């Protein structure tokens, strides 16, 4: 098969990026970032499939989760992959941040990777936490109740965050609905944007190295 070089526009620059040499010092960082990206995309895909059957209402939530696990074809695999990829993404993000700190590459051109890595870790943690609340069982109910009580005491934004998430004076159906919105509509976009920025800065760094060599 002959692989021709695209001649114009974005496809050419993407092809050029794919064919760029990766310096050995950047190799592990790049592969780690791409594995995190893969897990994120896996979560998005499985999350969309789960959202077809999940019902964020305290009355029907248990039935919808049982439906996914028992009656929907491959539902247990999809939910399991969604759960375990969320658990895997956290240590990988933490490892990437720790690696940047240990190697001292958080200065200069690597500073964007450091800041974005930290924000991605925070965002992934919030995604995993809000995801665990969506089963809305006894453990999830008391997790959010106690956690919001603690968050209330945080200065500046604590009270506001607790009030907005709770949607009233007590944890209720509104809380579940808001947690679901944050988990499925807000945080994935934020994390996706951070991933895109990270990729963009990495591409710029590679291009800089290429021009320096030239």
């Amino acid at each position, binding site marked *: 098969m002959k692989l021709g070089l695209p001649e114009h526009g974005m496809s050419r620059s993407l092809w050029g990026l794919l064919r760029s040499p*990766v310096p050995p010092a*950047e190799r592990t960082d790049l592969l780690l970032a791409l594995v995190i990206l893969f*897990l994120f995309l896996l979560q998005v895909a499985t999350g969309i499939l789960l959202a077809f059957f999940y019902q964020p209402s305290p009355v029907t939530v248990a039935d919808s989760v*049982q439906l996914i696990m028992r009656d929907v074809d491959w539902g*247990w695999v999809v*939910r399991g992959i969604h759960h375990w990829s969320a658990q895997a993404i*956290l240590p990988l993000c933490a490892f990437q941040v720790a690696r940047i700190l240990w190697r001292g590459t958080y200065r200069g051109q690597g500073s964007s990777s450091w*800041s974005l890595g*930290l*924000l991605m870790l925070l965002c992934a943690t919030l995604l995993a936490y809000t995801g665990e609340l969506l089963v809305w069982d006894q453990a999830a109910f008391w997790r959010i109740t106690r956690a919001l009580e603690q968050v209330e005491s945080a200065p500046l934004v604590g009270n506001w965050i607790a009030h907005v998430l709770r949607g009233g004076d007590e944890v209720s159906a509104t809380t579940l609905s808001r947690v679901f919105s944050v988990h499925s509509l807000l945080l994935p976009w934020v994390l996706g944007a951070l991933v895109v920025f990270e990729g963009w800065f990495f591409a710029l760094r590679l291009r800089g190295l290429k021009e320096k060599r030239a």
Partner: protein
Amino acid sequence: MILVLKPGIDAEELAEVMAELQKRGIEGRLLKNGPKPLVHLVSGPTRSARKLLKLEQVEALVPTSGPRVRQSGRRFYPYHFVHLAAVCLLLTGVLVLFAGNFPPGLGDAIDPQHPPAEVPYSWFVRAPLAFVALFPHSSAWLGWLCLYALGLAALFLPALVRSNASAPARWPRLVGALLLLGWLYLTFGGAPR
């Protein structure tokens, strides 16, 4: 190494180049698909092929290995792409294995009147909540303030560290290691409220 020949050379000129290679004990394979004929030098003393640059049929010599290539790195596609695909495939297998053997469950129905003796927080949020719980209830805001300060310091670490690239400062590593130990202690031994 790859020998790039000038475009439009005839069979006789090509035979001359191949004969020169054979004379030096280098095995070469001709690749004719592109606009310029290429000869892939697969074995033999390929370093001596540099002398072939004197021939007028030869346009350039592109190294495919050696210190210069190692320094500049291999191309993402296809080399690293294959590694990435293998890792992702393996990871998917592990995730399916975990999904089958340790499926995420569904707990008991909600009882708002009877809280559990200890709230089973997930491992990834135990440390910050346990840290805040170290402070008395009336001054829990102080714990949150410490977490804010830590987060901001971490975010602006590149601006805080003034050392040069050749001799990176050691204190961020030390602080990072201590924080990691504290985080692990609070995760496994801490008691969030």
